[in-house]
């Protein structure tokens, strides 16, 4: 199994990266500080839902993308620029072996890092939460791992498509910035172009689909449903680009804003499909592009 050989070798190298573990340590520290700060917040009850809401924001919108991109963006372009890709080819590996092997190994690394973060969070939750729901935490963990793998996959794809490490980093960070900062105003802009005004509280269903094609938004919406609370994104665009009131944040839940039964594309499971598509489509494009590219 050539793919397994290359994946195992790559995994050994990446796991030894001090930079990745340093950033991981920094984020864990940050998580700890925020967790303890919220625990010492006096009278309010600390629930699993509350903690998940807190970490879904910081973790999913900042920590997971940053580490995911760091782990993935050098995967292929690094070998290409250093010249070691020629050695891999000489050892019998094909372009497909390299892309698949690297995707596997880098996914493994981000899974390890995410599980480590989740374990830290689990320990904190057990200690500081007044009640703890393991089932809910497991669901949250699974979705968070999927999101983390997605960011790494996008970075690996960028690494296969571009010819220099800076372009790979730029493309991967660009995708993240698009998701975290610009997607929502773009979606609202499209609504404005079609409908003639900014989306209102009861916006059309296609608009909600458009916003949740952003994997971070999809993730937030699912976490919102599971924890029965509105989970904010890093930037509260909803109050800027939509004509809504945010006095009661939970009124912004999708289930509140869409009357009647949700269409399938606004359901929980479809959010998972969207995130998986954000793995599959970039990798498919990367595979197509990498198989055709001159690699010097």
């Amino acid at each position, binding site marked *: 199994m050539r793919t397994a050989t290359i994946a195992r070798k790559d995994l050994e190298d990446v796991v030894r990266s001090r930079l990745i573990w340093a950033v991981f340590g920094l984020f864990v520290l940050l998580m700890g500080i925020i967790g303890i700060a919220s625990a010492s917040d006096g009278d309010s009850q600390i629930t699993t839902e509350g903690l998940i809401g807190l970490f879904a924001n910081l973790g999913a919108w900042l920590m997971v993308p940053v580490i995911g991109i760091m782990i993935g963006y050098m995967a292929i372009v690094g070998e290409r620029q250093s010249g070691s890709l020629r050695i891999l080819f*000489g050892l*019998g590996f094909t372009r497909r072996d390299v892309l698949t092997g690297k995707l596997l190994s880098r996914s493994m690394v981000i899974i390890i890092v995410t599980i480590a973060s989740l374990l830290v969070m689990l320990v904190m939750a057990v200690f500081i939460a007044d009640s703890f729901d393991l089932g809910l935490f497991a669901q949250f963990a699974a979705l968070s791992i999927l999101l983390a793998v997605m960011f790494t996959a996008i970075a690996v794809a960028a690494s296969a498509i571009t010819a220099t490490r800076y372009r790979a980093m730029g493309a991967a960070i660009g995708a993240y910035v698009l998701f975290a900062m610009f997607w929502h105003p773009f979606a609202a802009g499209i609504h404005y172009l079609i409908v003639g005004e900014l989306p209102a509280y009861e916006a059309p269903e296609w608009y909600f689909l458009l916003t949740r094609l952003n994997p971070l938004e999809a993730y937030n919406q699912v976490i919102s449903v599971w924890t029965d609370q509105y989970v904010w994104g890093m930037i509260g665009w909803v109050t800027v680009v939509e004509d809504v009131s945010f006095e009661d944040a939970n009124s912004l839940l999708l289930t509140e804003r869409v009357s009647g039964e949700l269409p399938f594309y606004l359901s929980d499971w479809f959010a998972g499909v969207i995130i998986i598509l954000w793995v599959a489509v970039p990798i498919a494009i990367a595979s197509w592009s990498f198989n055709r590219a001159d690699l010097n």
Partner: protein
Amino acid sequence: MNAIETSRLTKRYGSVTALDGLNLEVEAGEVFGFLGQNGAGKTTTIDLLLDFIRPSEGHATILGYDVQTETDEVRERIGILPEGFDLWERSTGRRHVEFALEATDGGGDVDTLIERVGLTPPDAKRSVGEYSKGMKQRLAMAMALAGEPELLILDEPSSGLDPHGIRRMREIVREEAAAGTTVFFSSHQLEQVAAVCDRVGILNEGLLVATDSIEGLSSAAGVGNELVLEVDGPVSEGLEQLNGVVDVHTDNGELRVGYADPQAKAQIVHHVVDCGVTVQDFTIAEASLEELFEVYTNGDETGGVSA
């Protein structure tokens, strides 16, 4: 079947032609020197053979397999030492060789390979981030040899190596050749190529300007060995008619007789003496490869040895 065969192999980047219609045949079992200055298109050729880049025109086969459509078959049978590479810094040298053996399903032995390229067991235990350029070069050679390739492609293999390293590398090339491996030896250094190669191709600005043995190239280019005689008088006619003599001229009072056949030397001396001229001293001037190279790469194929 040829080890390497290219037909009109061409690579263009926009308006720049990196390789222009290369027709090359490297026979199985030979050590082929691929000579050219930096930027002549040597690495472009190797990259095309490796399917690292795609040709603008033409095609190539390695051991009968098309390099583009039968990449798996090709890559299973070659070993490559590329020019200018980094290895995986956090892994040990030993792990690199283990990986190469795993990848090539080679039954070879890690320690044997490491020893063969002249790395010591303590070197092999260190991580490659601590390696010098020469050590990396040796390690990559060990990786190239893993899996006993039928064709060994070496791109500037002596770069970064000290004289010991170069000697070891040449010994390896000779050992491999003796075992039947074809070696494609790309270099801009003539003495490296001349030391190990059976035949040489000269590449200049993307064009293959000559292919022959070193001796054949020399005589074809008129760059031959010369007998330089210090004489006390003019030499009568007839020298040029001698077998093996290609050129006669006088330079700074020295008589210089170019020959293609080494056995012509004695006859030359006899002839001069027979003419009643006293030979005070004589030396042999061997054609330098630099001169040979100049002749081909300047497109001046009729040039001779300059004094």
